[in-house]
């Protein structure tokens, strides 16, 4: 069966520091992958999606970037964090049946 994991689960970073959140999927090949952000009390905002290695589409101009160095690995990065980058980040993969399944999520607090 397919599984998705992301880490770290929680991190507190100072303003201006770099960020790296990692997500991996097991049990499937060439999945569509997604990064979402959930601000406090809000729904999910799509940040990036990827349909293959090295293929990244950005939905919202921002301080973040994404990369897909391997088929089942998706990384969310920033060179310099802003306070507004704080939030809950969710990685997801899309099944062939057009359904997305989420990882455990990562809490980011920028101080």
């Amino acid at each position, binding site marked *: 069966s397919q599984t998705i994991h992301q880490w770290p689960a929680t991190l507190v970073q100072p303003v201006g520091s770099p960020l790296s959140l990692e997500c991996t999927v097991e049990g499937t090949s060439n999945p*569509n992958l*997604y990064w979402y952000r959930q601000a406090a009390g809000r*729904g999910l905002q*799509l940040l990036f999606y990827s349909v293959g290695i090295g293929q990244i589409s950005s939905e919202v101009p921002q301080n973040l970037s994404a990369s897909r160095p391997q088929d089942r690995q998706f990384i969310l990065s920033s060179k310099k964090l802003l306070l507004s980058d704080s939030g809950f980040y*969710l990685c*997801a993969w899309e099944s062939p049946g057009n359904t*997305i*399944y989420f990882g*455990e999520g990562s809490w980011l607090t920028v101080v």
Partner: protein
Amino acid sequence: AQTVTQSQPEMSVQEAETVTLSCTYDTSESDYYLFWYKQPPSRQMILVIRQEAYKQQNATENRFSVNFQKAAKSFSLKISDSQLGDAAMYFCAYGYSGTYKYIFGTGTRLKVLA
């Protein structure tokens, strides 16, 4: 543009009772997918139920069922025999094949009273 609206920010239900969460959406497409996700305090998003728009039959998963009204663009979730573990945020979502975009509502917080 597609939109998903959940007009109930918060709902309460007595344990063992039934509750219905509302969701409406807007789309010009005819073939799409609708979902309900549950987000418990752990924050992980868990798929509850999925409906394909071309299917007239309402989806059911144990105590969870939907009322899908395609013409009205309505997709409500009914939870029967509510349990304390059902307390969570519930998100309605819309997806359209090939667009790589899943649109989420703002969520409904469900409280289950003992």
